[in-house]
């Protein structure tokens, strides 16, 4: 599976990278919305996205934009926001699931391998 991870925190990205390296999946990490837009292609099977990009919830708008554009692959929101409202917002814009930070590795494994 080709996975794209949009994350502006270097350390969080590294953790995910470390795990994916042990699997058969391919991981690309980008740090800005523009890069994500550029790298995203028909080959992308799964998008992991940190909602709080640039300290604003602009990740949500990006997800909405992607869904409107016809991107129908799995989108998983990765976020430290944990209020009920925030999770509902993720669902509303079209995310398939939410992974709440901090997560442990088995949770990450489960959500990717589902």
């Amino acid at each position: 599976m080709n996975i794209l991870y949009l994350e502006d925190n270097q350390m969080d990205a590294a953790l995910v990278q470390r795990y994916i390296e042990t699997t058969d999946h391919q991981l690309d990490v980008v740090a800005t919305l523009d890069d994500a837009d550029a790298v995203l292609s028909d080959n992308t099977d799964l998008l992991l996205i940190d909602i709080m990009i640039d300290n604003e919830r602009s990740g949500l708008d990006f997800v909405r934009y992607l869904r409107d554009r016809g991107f129908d692959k799995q989108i998983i929101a990765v976020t430290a926001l944990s209020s009920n409202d925030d999770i509902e917002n993720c669902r509303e814009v079209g995310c398939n699931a939410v992974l709440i930070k901090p997560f442990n590795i088995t949770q990450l494994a489960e959500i990717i391998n589902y």
Partner: protein
Amino acid sequence: MAITNENLTDSLNVYEEREDLRATFIQTISISFIIIGILLIGSASQSVASSWFLTMMPWVLLCVGSGFSLYFKKKQPAISGVLLTGIVPVAIGCQQVFVEYTPALSYLLLLSVIIGIGFLKEQYVVFLPLIPIVSTIAFDSYHNGVLWFATDTLYISILACATAAAGYGILDHARGMVTWAFDRQNKSFVRAESFYDQGEKLRKATYELERAKEQVEEISGAKSVFLSNMSHELRTPLNMVIGYTSSILDMPQMYENQEVPEVFRKDIELIKSSGEYLLTLINDILDLSKIESGKFEINPVAFDINPVLEGVMATALGLVKEKPIQLKPDFDSDLSLIHGDPMRIRQILLNLMSNAVKYTVSGSVVLSVKQQGDEIRIAVTDTGMGIPEETIATIFDRFEQVQNNSNIQGTGLGLDISQRLAEMHGSRINIESTVGAGSTFSFSLPLATEEQTAEFTGDETIHELTGIKRFDVAEPEAPESTWKTKRTVLIAEDDSTTRDLLLRTFEANNYKVFDVQDGDDVYDTASALLPQLIILDIVLPNRDGWTILDDLKADEETAHIPVIVLSAHIDDTDLRKEKAEMCLVKPINTHNILKHANQAIESHQRITMEA
């Protein structure tokens, strides 16, 4: 009437009004006397035929003088007074000199003097009447060649004096009344001024209060933003702690397939659990700060408490671990819908249950839910160390813990938050406790009204606040199944492939599934959850499946649960058949197992109904 700036200048106009009043007074008196003068002069002059000019002159003088006095009455009351006091006597004088002397005219003279009283200092006023009296008598005596006491004017003078005195008295009284009126007005004015002052002070105080309120709101808002940001900041390094400790412990493939050496494992697990504890602390603090700043909202709806209870029991089981504590559910069957926020009720229950487990060394923790009238009473009873009387009062205060055993880990905030959550639902958590024997924490919740029940959607969006929340795996609701008939099944299987298969099969068919992998856990979990069905693999680690079956049937609480046994050997199918519903041989046929499961539950329901 509010005291404003406009009203204040109105009050100042009192002074102008006073002048007005005085002027009007003069005007009224002078007009009336002028009229009398005109009448008297007119009547007198008719009796003497004389030149037209001489007859008219006093009239003219009177009119002119009156005109002037009226003109001056407002601006120069003194001039007005002089004119009045001057003109009339002049007119009379002329009358006397040029026309004919009549004693009645002296009356006018005197009265005109009285008007002058209004403008002279009081002490001189007394002497005023003497002047015209004496001059009149002298004039009369001279004119008529008679001695003064024989003149007519004497008697008229006496009469005039009496009138003057009376007039003076009246005027004085009038003036007194006017002064009194002015005084009153003055006092009102002073009072108005003080009201105005007070009003000013009030306005200033209100303004300052509003400023202070704005400041407080700003600070509170800043505090919320700060805490929210801090929460986010704190979670990021925690991601590293929890993420990597779990990797080291559970993912050897990330470390060139090297397992973590046993000697390190315990310490690394400690780091991981500390990280998890920090996470609960952050969540508690964030909750508490939201509650305090009034920004904490609950979303009460009509909901079914059964899934919440099952979830709580399952989580509490995880807390028991190796302690010899039995978790027992005691739920009324057929509970109605409750009105409340399911996520927060779950939060309260988890807190109470985890406290009960924490403070109990051995024995039991019972979660009881009973329907009474129009409410549900929930109680958590443990056989723990109990709480002393004095501590019960303060136990809900922040950071208070029963300081007995420093091994007991807790944020100290949980009960505080739970009590506040209960209060937000219109309830209160009550404690009954005996030291050494145990404690009961209880509270009640209202049943959903008909109106609220009508809005029930059965859509249980209770989000866990950690880990994973999946949206697209909605349990497909069979059309005839309602919230009442969701079934729970406990799967005891240590082989992961089989277990996964069973989990997926049952979940996809509207079952709520719990699973265990260790033989030791089966009985405890079953007695805590009281599922409607147990699928039991005969070969489990640590405890033999048949023994477990015996345990289950021996306990009257779990005896009624139908058990489907899974085995790898055909030979086992005959054994202990009366205790198990059936014995299925692996590999399992998922279609069959579902059919058998449903049959087992339904036939069992029939039995219990007939009983």
